[in-house]
């Protein structure tokens, strides 16, 4: 009997102990559940961002009411960038490599409607061997609504196809089209202020404003690169002279057509040469149909009263290019994009010269292939032929490169 009562007492005691432990465990599980919920909620808020809406019922004085909804994330810092490097072999020359560009972006949302954006450029790898480091843009965006926003600072000049969207995954050739390297001197960035927005149910995008003028007195007189060396960019104590720039694009789902215009003083330096003006205009079109993509651009540049700068200065130039690209991934049943492309360019960087002479146009052909291991990276193979009748020279170059975005 005594034994039984001892056993019963032990059982009751053990049960009480287990009940206590169980209750404690339940409490701990509840705590952990709450902690886990809080962490997941926090993670979801960070990953999806919070957002702020512009109240589109209120009109902005002189700016018009917002036509449609615009949401902005309240996430503050954003980091991104792109890079590209290549190896090239021209005619019988020795092959060479170039760590062409590494460009980090930093953006910071100072408020829901004020954003700072910067792009730093590291070009050609080594500053002691011809490389350079520069600020490629640094601006503040004041986001009012879709119809009207203001961008102030050192910014990309809104001309051409490539200057605004110059990441290596967005064009087929290893080097950007020469038309957009020399006549629209990509990457062309100047200090200024732009008004921009989308109207007509987002079909029309416009930009207009004032930027720092080119200094054509510093342009390449031999006309090999002409405008490229006339950019002020982000130079220290760069002279400032206002030039006007405007752009309009009309866009449907598969088609975009547009044009842009630049007009300013021809000379922009502390020792100004007065009485010259510089104008550039371009027309461009892009078309996409399923896996086919077409691009075309025509541009002209004119330096009026070029003789005031130099008797041998170029006064007029002209260029055009057309490109075709086709993604053959579906044809060979692979998931990665595999694009074959062709590009034809015809450019004359000295169509007219101040002394009355002129040069002949240069023809350039590219064919190649782009393979995208991911949507954010590309491997390129590009065969280029440049036919320059001025020097009776035919250059053939083969390029291989990779590019990426992050």
């Amino acid at each position: 009997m005594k034994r039984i009562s001892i056993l019963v007492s032990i059982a009751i005691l053990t049960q009480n102990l287990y009940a206590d432990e169980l209750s404690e465990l339940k409490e701990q599980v509840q705590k952990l559940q709450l902690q886990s919920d809080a962490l997941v909620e926090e993670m979801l808020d960070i990953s999806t961002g919070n957002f702020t809406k512009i109240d589109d019922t209120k009109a902005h004085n002189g700016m018009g009411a917002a036509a449609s909804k615009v949401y902005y994330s309240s996430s503050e810092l954003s980091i991104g960038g792109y890079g590209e490097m290549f190896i090239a072999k021209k005619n019988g020359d020795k092959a060479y490599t170039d760590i062409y560009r590494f460009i980090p972006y930093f953006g910071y949302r100072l408020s829901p409607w004020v954003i700072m954006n910067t792009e730093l450029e590291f070009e050609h790898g080594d500053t002691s061997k011809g490389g350079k480091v520069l600020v490629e843009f640094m601006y503040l965006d004041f986001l009012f609504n879709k119809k009207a926003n203001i961008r102030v600072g050192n910014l990309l000049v809104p001309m051409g196809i490539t200057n605004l969207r110059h990441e290596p995954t967005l064009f087929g050739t290893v080097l950007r089209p020469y038309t957009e390297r020399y006549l629209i001197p990509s990457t062309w960035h100047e200090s200024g202020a732009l008004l921009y927005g989308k109207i007509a149910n987002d079909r029309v995008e416009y930009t207009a404003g004032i930027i720092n003028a080119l200094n054509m007195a510093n342009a390449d007189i031999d006309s090999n690169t002409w405008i490229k060396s006339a950019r002020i960019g982000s130079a220290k104590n760069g002279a400032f002279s206002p030039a006007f720039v405007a752009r309009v694009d009309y866009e449907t789902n598969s088609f975009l057509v547009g044009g842009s215009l630049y007009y300013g003083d021809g000379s922009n330096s502390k020792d100004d040469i007065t009485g010259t003006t510089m104008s550039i205009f371009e027309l461009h079109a892009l078309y996409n149909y399923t896996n086919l993509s077409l691009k075309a651009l025509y541009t002209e540049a004119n330096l009026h009263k070029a003789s005031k700068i130099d008797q041998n200065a170029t006064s007029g130039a002209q260029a055009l290019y057309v490109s075709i690209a086709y993604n053959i991934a579906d044809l060979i049943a692979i998931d990665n994009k595999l694009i074959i492309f062709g590009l034809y360019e015809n450019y004359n960087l000295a169509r007219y010269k101040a002394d009355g002479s002129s040069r002949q146009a240069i023809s350039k052909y590219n064919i190649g292939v782009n393979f995208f291991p991911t949507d954010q990276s590309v491997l390129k193979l590009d065969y280029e032929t440049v036919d320059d009748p001025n020097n009776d020279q035919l250059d053939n170059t083969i390029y291989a490169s990779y590019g990426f975005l992050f």
Partner: protein
Amino acid sequence: MKTIIIMLTTALALHCNSLKHVSAEEIIQQNFSSTQVTVEKSKIILNSDELSQMRTLSQQPLKSKIYRYYKVTSKKRLLGYAILIAQKVRTKKATVMYLVKPDSKIGFIEILSFLEPPEYIPNKEWIDQLKDRGATDRLKVGSDISTITGATLSAISITKGARVAIALYGLKIR
């Protein structure tokens, strides 16, 4: 010049007053303007096997195991699930809300946050192409969904997000 500065300052002041925070629930309600809806916030946590299935179903190299969604009903009738997907566009992220209807097809799409410059936001006409697309559609930019000429990477990112939302609905919500 003085007049321009005064006008600009006034515009900025009015603009600041017009900013307000908006919740996902409000955005959902705005898309059902004529119907009063009830929105119930929830989340999905995938285990490793489910993440692997999601990768297969969406054909995306997904990393995240957690997703936010909202159940949308009206008078106890299910209208759909609004799923938030955050993906990289060009070099920066965007968060997009996809409403997946009970028939597994996209009802509406709202871009909630967009860290790229605003010129990269695709227009409404392009976004509307994805409406009424479902799990049986391939949803591939180029062959099935047209590429937007000025914002190709935005088009790719938003289309891929649609695939993820439809797959999440099929695997974890329905």
